[in-house]
């Protein structure tokens, strides 16, 4: 019996230290680990795909006239990475950050505001052929700033756009042109 105990003791001494020195030294995560999501407002086109697939609905998308506000309520994020999978512009990335503990819940809520008015690819406003198409195409904001379009449909928040853009300006503002794209 004592021999067995002695053997056990030898094994235990031989094992060395098994405890992770974690909070004092950083720890590696697996390469495909899904941590906190990171977003980039410069890449976002406001398509709302992420909000559409989010199971806990922690990505909330709001239309404010020609702006889109996307709120990330990461307190209930389950890190399923579906938003990352659907994002066509890679505006949402999965980081390896898992150290998200916080004493304040407000630290877990982030938001981004994106200017939506013109097409992010060509720099021109959308114009569809008929009214049904216009309603079904997402992020359609009417034809011109403050203008009733040819089908008699008012864009959302007519007054605001009139005040914002007094002239007709179909071109995309220069500050929104991405690097490597031709200037309008």
């Amino acid at each position: 019996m004592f021999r067995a105990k002695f053997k056990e003791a030898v094994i235990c001494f031989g094992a060395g230290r098994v405890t992770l020195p974690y909070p004092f030294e950083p720890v590696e995560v697996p390469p495909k680990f899904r941590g906190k999501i990171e977003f980039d407002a410069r890449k976002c086109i406001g398509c709302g795909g992420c909000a559409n697939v989010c199971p806990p609905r922690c990505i909330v998308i709001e239309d404010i006239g020609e702006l889109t506000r996307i709120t990330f309520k990461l307190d209930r994020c389950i890190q399923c990475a579906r938003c990352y999978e659907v994002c066509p512009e890679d505006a949402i990335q999965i980081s390896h950050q898992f150290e998200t503990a916080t004493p304040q819940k407000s630290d877990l809520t982030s938001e981004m505001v994106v200017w939506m008015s013109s097409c992010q690819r060509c720099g021109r406003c959308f114009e569809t052929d008929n009214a049904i198409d216009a309603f079904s195409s997402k992020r359609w904001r009417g034809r011109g700033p403050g203008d009733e379009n040819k089908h008699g449909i008012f864009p959302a928040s007519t007054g605001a756009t009139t005040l914002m853009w007094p002239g007709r300006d179909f071109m995309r503002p220069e500050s929104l042109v991405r690097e490597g794209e031709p200037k309008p």
Partner: protein
Amino acid sequence: MILEFCKKMFGKSLWLFHTNCGACNGCDIEVIDVLTPYYDVERFGMKLVGSPRHADALVISGSVSRQVAPALRRLYEATADPKVVIAVGACAVGGNIWFDTYSVLGGADKVVPVNMYIPGCPPRPEAIVYGAALALGLVPKKVASRQEQHLPSGFSLDDYLARYSEGDAKAEEAGIAK
């Protein structure tokens, strides 16, 4: 001097009482994981106790369901002061995918005040160790709220929002549905 001695000796020995308020057991398994020799949160003086009367800290996992809410309230009152409440997992922090379900209150903070939130579904054992270390002041906080904007230059968001509400009022007057 005695006070300082007591602070030094007892300051970091949190005794935990672990409650499951409707969790799927994922977070509970991770909490038990944290107590094993591999992650070993006991080196910070934390250990599980069997009664809330012995506990300094409540560890809550699970989106708090309607059935369990009064029990959780009583449990909180039974814990001796001063007490710390730690919410572990996306359910206890914000309600997870049940945040607006009829039978669920959606988060421990709807019932009791929470001192430390550890999100994740379930959180990694390291994340729970990090939360414990953050509560003890051993590590800095790493997460913060972020506001990002991508707007044309010279664009004032506040102005726009004000004009937007004005425009809404005008549209309402004109009888245009938004």
